[in-house]
Structure formats: C-alpha cells, structure tokens
C-alpha cells in the first residue's frame, strides 16, 4: 500500500499519463466476462420488453388505478442520476472547484449513459410504443401536432436537449485526451482514436478554441441541471392527484437528483479507481469532497420531506391528509420508512470524517442512498396513485416479473456502456489533471494525516 500512497502524494505529469494509459490497456478475461454479463442482463430486459410489446401490458402487474408504476419510477431515477454529472462537470467547472478535475469525466460519462437509460423508460411505459413519434412535432398530412400544454411534451424536449448537450460536452472535453491516447496507441486503436480526436494537434489556436467551446457548453449545461429535473417534476406537480399536486416538487426533485447522482458517482468511482489502479488520480480527497455534497443534499431532502408533510398538515385538506396517512401507515408504508432510513438517517454517518475517508463505508452508504432514492420515487408516484380521490378505486400495485427484469436490464445496459467507455476512452481527464496537479498534491497532504489514522 505504501507505494500507492507515495504516488498519491507525489503524482507527476508522467504519473497522470502513465496511470490513465494503464487504464486504457486491453481488458483481461475478467473484464470481458463482466461486460458480457451486463450485456446478458441488457438482452434479457430487451427480450421481456419485446414480449410486453407483443402481449400488451397483460403480463405486467399494472392495473387500475396505478397507471404509472415501476417504469416511470425508473425513468425519474435515472434522470435524477444524470444531474450530478452535469453539476460536477459544468457548475463546479464554472466555479473553478478544484476537486472536480479527477472525477468530472467519470461523472459526465455516467450522465450520458444515465440519460440514455432514462430515455428508454417512457417508451417502455407507452401503451402503443410504435406511435411514440406522435409526441414529436413533425409536418403530417393529418395536420396534427402534439399538445404543448402537456408536461409530457415538455419532458420530451427537456430530455432530448439534455442528452444532446451532455453528449457534446462530454465529447468536447474528450478530444485532447483522445489525441493524447492516439499518440501512444497502435493498431486499430490508433485509427479509432485518430477518428475521434478530429485531428487534434494541440496547437495554440486549437487550445484557445477548445477552451472557449468548453466554457460555452458548460454555460449551456448549467441551467439544464435545474431546468430538466424541474420539468420532470412537473409531470407530477401539474396534476391534481393528491400527493403529486405540490409546488415544492421542482426544487425537491432537483435536490434529490443531485443527492442520488453524487451517491452513484461514489458507487462507480470507488470500485473503478481500485480496479483501474487510479487511486493516485481519484484520491480520498475527491471522495471526501463528493461525500460532503451527498451529506448536504441528504439534509436538504430531509428538510423537503418535512416541508411536504407539514404543508399537507397545514392545508388540513382531508383528501391530501388521507393520502399521506396511507403513505406513512398504509399497506406499503414500510417503503416510506425504508426510504427515510436510507435517505435521511444513514447519510448522517458522513458527518464523521473517518467514514468520509473510508472507501468501504462510503461505498455501502452510497448503495443505501441509491436504494432510498429509488424507493422515494416509487412511494411518491405509485403510492399517491394507489390512494386517489375516490376510495372505491384504491388499489395497491405489486410489480410482476416483467417490470423487475426490465429494471434489472436497465442497470445491465447502463453498466455495460459505462464499462466499455471506461476501457476504451480516458475515464479521467489527463488535461485537467495536469492543470490542477498542484492542487492535488497540496490537497492530498491536507487529507492524508487523518486518513492514515483511519
């Protein structure tokens, strides 16, 4: 371990290049087995989706009155995940936050693939997916257009915009690094990289343009962090359904998104840095800072839950109150309490520095947060639908195999993409690492003492 620590303390430009290059080396058997496994999960999910399209929703657990259930929960979950990436890469970039350099690439990759995953779920959820394009405005002989009053249409635009910007942002940032990789690569990889590097030579002019474009895109991306998830939250807040009809939703959802996103960054970064031997680049210092963000957002969530409940109590609206009474103590109340435990109680451990600097602890906590945030969406969406305004129509939803498999499949799909990216493209930005290498040395020195004690 000592060597590793040394490299942590004393990373040089060469170290950076060497470590990232090492990560790009051809994957071993274990790696490909893992990718294959993810691919299998993806295929399985795909098969079940096909089956669902063919046999209609008959095979799912859906029914009155829970029109939206697991699929929309997954959708919001993945969109939420995406946001932290943009936060770290764009907002923290504009604020010149130092600890972002090592992890922003990873976070951004996560963003792109999370959005790509999220985008699938509205389709999977559609009753007649083969007509999904009717939500898109296009000239047609019927002279029919989508209804722009519908939050779902806003959603469509929000998500597609978000995907476009994120992809551009990610790719732009990649160019210099790819060029770097190209120069050392041989064989087909060389062609591969040279295509992607758009003939980057690292000339002064290129650097200047690069900086401008990157700054611009960061500027574009920043408002999206807030807008996209607000729009998503309006899918619910705009309705009259007790439990959804609430003005707090937008900020509340955004906070939740950052929360779950940063948690997932942790979940990904901790194994990644170990497996790819880049502890030297993604150091405890970074994880420490990241976990502080998680801690902050967790507290914000706790506050939101409190506010939400308080408002319901304050309005004294019997229907709202009944819905929330069911949310807490109803047949599926246990989910709510699990969610509170995962989102409000467990993250409080992060107040302890030792926990923040212990990768194992961080990893476990981040997993809990992810579970909690998924449950939160389920509780809000499905729970509210189950206990609607007409008691005679109350019914509680229980997922069946199809939903479960497709959900698992979505994780497979996400991890597969992520793993492939991590192996073939630099998952840590060499450029920015080198820029910020001095900060890193100093930072590691700051964190090191109490980490050693741990």
């Amino acid at each position: 371990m000592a060597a590793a620590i040394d490299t942590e303390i004393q990373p040089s430009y060469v170290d950076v290049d060497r470590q990232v290059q090492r990560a790009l080396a051809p994957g071993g058997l274990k790696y490909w087995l893992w990718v294959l496994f993810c691919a299998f999960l993806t295929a399985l999910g795909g098969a079940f989706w096909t089956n669902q399209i063919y046999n209609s929703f008959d095979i799912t657990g859906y029914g009155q009155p829970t029109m939206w259930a697991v699929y929309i929960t997954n959708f919001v979950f993945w969109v939420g995940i995406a946001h932290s990436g943009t936060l770290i890469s764009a907002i923290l970039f504009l604020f010149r936050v130092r600890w972002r350099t090592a992890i922003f690439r990873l976070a951004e990759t996560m963003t792109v693939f999370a959005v790509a995953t999220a985008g699938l779920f509205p389709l999977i959820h559609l009753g007649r997916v083969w007509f999904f394009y009717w939500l898109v405005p296009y000239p047609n002989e019927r002279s029919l257009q989508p209804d722009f009053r519908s939050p779902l249409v806003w959603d469509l635009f929000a998500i597609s915009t978000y995907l476009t910007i994120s992809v551009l942002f990610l790719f732009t940032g990649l160019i210099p690094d790819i060029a770097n990789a190209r120069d050392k690569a041989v064989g087909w990889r060389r062609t591969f990289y040279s295509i992607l590097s758009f003939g980057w030579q690292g000339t002064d002019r290129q650097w200047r343009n690069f900086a401008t474009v990157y700054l611009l895109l960061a500027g574009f991306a920043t408002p999206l962090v807030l807008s996209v998830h607000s729009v998503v939250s309006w899918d619910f807040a705009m309705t009259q359904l007790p439990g959804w009809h609430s003005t707090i939703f937008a900020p509340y959802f955004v906070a939740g998104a950052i929360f779950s996103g940063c948690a997932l960054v942790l979940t990904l970064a901790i194994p990644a840095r170990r497996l790819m031997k880049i502890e030297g680049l993604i150091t405890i210092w970074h994880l420490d800072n990241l976990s502080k963000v998680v801690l902050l957002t967790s507290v914000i969530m706790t506050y939101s839950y409190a506010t939400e409940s308080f408002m319901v109590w304050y309005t004294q609206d019997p229907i709202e109150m009944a819905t929330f009474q069911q949310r807490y103590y109803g047949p599926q109340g246990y989910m709510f309490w699990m969610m509170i435990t995962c989102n409000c109680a467990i993250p409080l451990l992060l107040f302890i520095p030792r926990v923040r600097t212990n990768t194992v602890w961080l990893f476990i906590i981040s997993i809990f947060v992810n579970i909690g945030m998924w449950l939160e969406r389920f509780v809000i969406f499905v729970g509210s639908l189950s206990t609607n305004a007409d008691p005679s129509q109350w019914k509680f939803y229980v997922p069946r195999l199809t939903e479960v498999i497709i959900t698992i499949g979505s994780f497979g799909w996400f991890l597969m993409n992520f793993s492939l990216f991590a192996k073939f493209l630099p998952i840590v930005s060499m450029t920015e690492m080198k820029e910020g290498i001095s900060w890193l040395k100093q930072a590691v020195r700051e964190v090191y003492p109490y980490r050693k004690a741990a």
Partner: protein
Amino acid sequence: MNRILIPVALLLFLSGAATVGFSERPWAPRSDVEQPIPFSHRVHAGINKIPCQYCHEYARRSATSGVPPVARCVGCHGSGLLGGIKPITQPWTDDHQPPFEIRWNRVYALPDFVKFVHKPHIWAGVACQECHGPVETMDRVVPVHEINMGFCINCHTKRGATQDCFVCHH
C-alpha cells in the same frame, strides 16, 4: 472523415426510403383489384347514364352506399330464358347456378376506427366523384384519390364542415 460519413448518411437515407416505399399501408385504396365479373362502370354509369344511386341505393340513407343486389342486375338484364339485355357476363352466368352470389372485391376500405357515413355527404351535395373520381369513365374501378385523413380534412376545411375528431373517430 468523409470516407465514413458519406456512406453512413447514404445508408440511412436509403433505409428510410425503403421503409416508406415498401411498407404496406393497409388502408390505401387498391388499384390492383380485379372483380369476379367484368362489370364496367363506364358502360353503366357513363354510356347508359345510370345514376350512381340507382344501384348504390343506400348512399343517401345510410353509412354505407351499398352494392346492388343481383336482383337489381336481373331487373334490366333479365334471366337467360326471358331475354332482356344480354350481359357480356353471359359465359359467367352459364357456369354458375342461381342464386348468383357475386363476391365483389373491395376497392375502398376504411379502418374500424373511422366511422365514415355516406348519408350526410350526399345530403350536403358532395358529388360521388369528389372522392371516388370519374368512375363513369372507368371499366375497372381504380382509386383516384388516396382516401386518408388529410383528404377528409382538406375538404372539410374548404366546406367549413366540422373538424371535431370525435365525429368520425368513436
């Protein structure tokens, strides 16, 4: 770069074109429909000036215009023994036993979710030809217009008829 991009773009375009070109549009009127007997609208409606609704008698009373019963044909053509106008379908009638059930093939078909009703259109003074084309000039009926929603909407807009989806789709 272009070595890759151009082929890719080309491929995309071609596949798109193929999908549009070869996809079956089940509700498009058929121009390839052959009828069991060589019935000629040109002879009946054109030369002999038989009004459309003499045979398609339900058009002004019902949703469907109706296909004439064989009895209507016999009205003019009579039966073999009683003489009457000798139809060119004689060979056909010879090797069929009465009652002659003519199983016509559809040229115009609408999906179940389109509730088109002839009646109000006739009463609104829409000529048959406006949708079915100059049938009186055709030996074998072939569609002139592709009867789709755009076609309906255009005419409704021109004539200031209702634009409410619910009237036709319910």
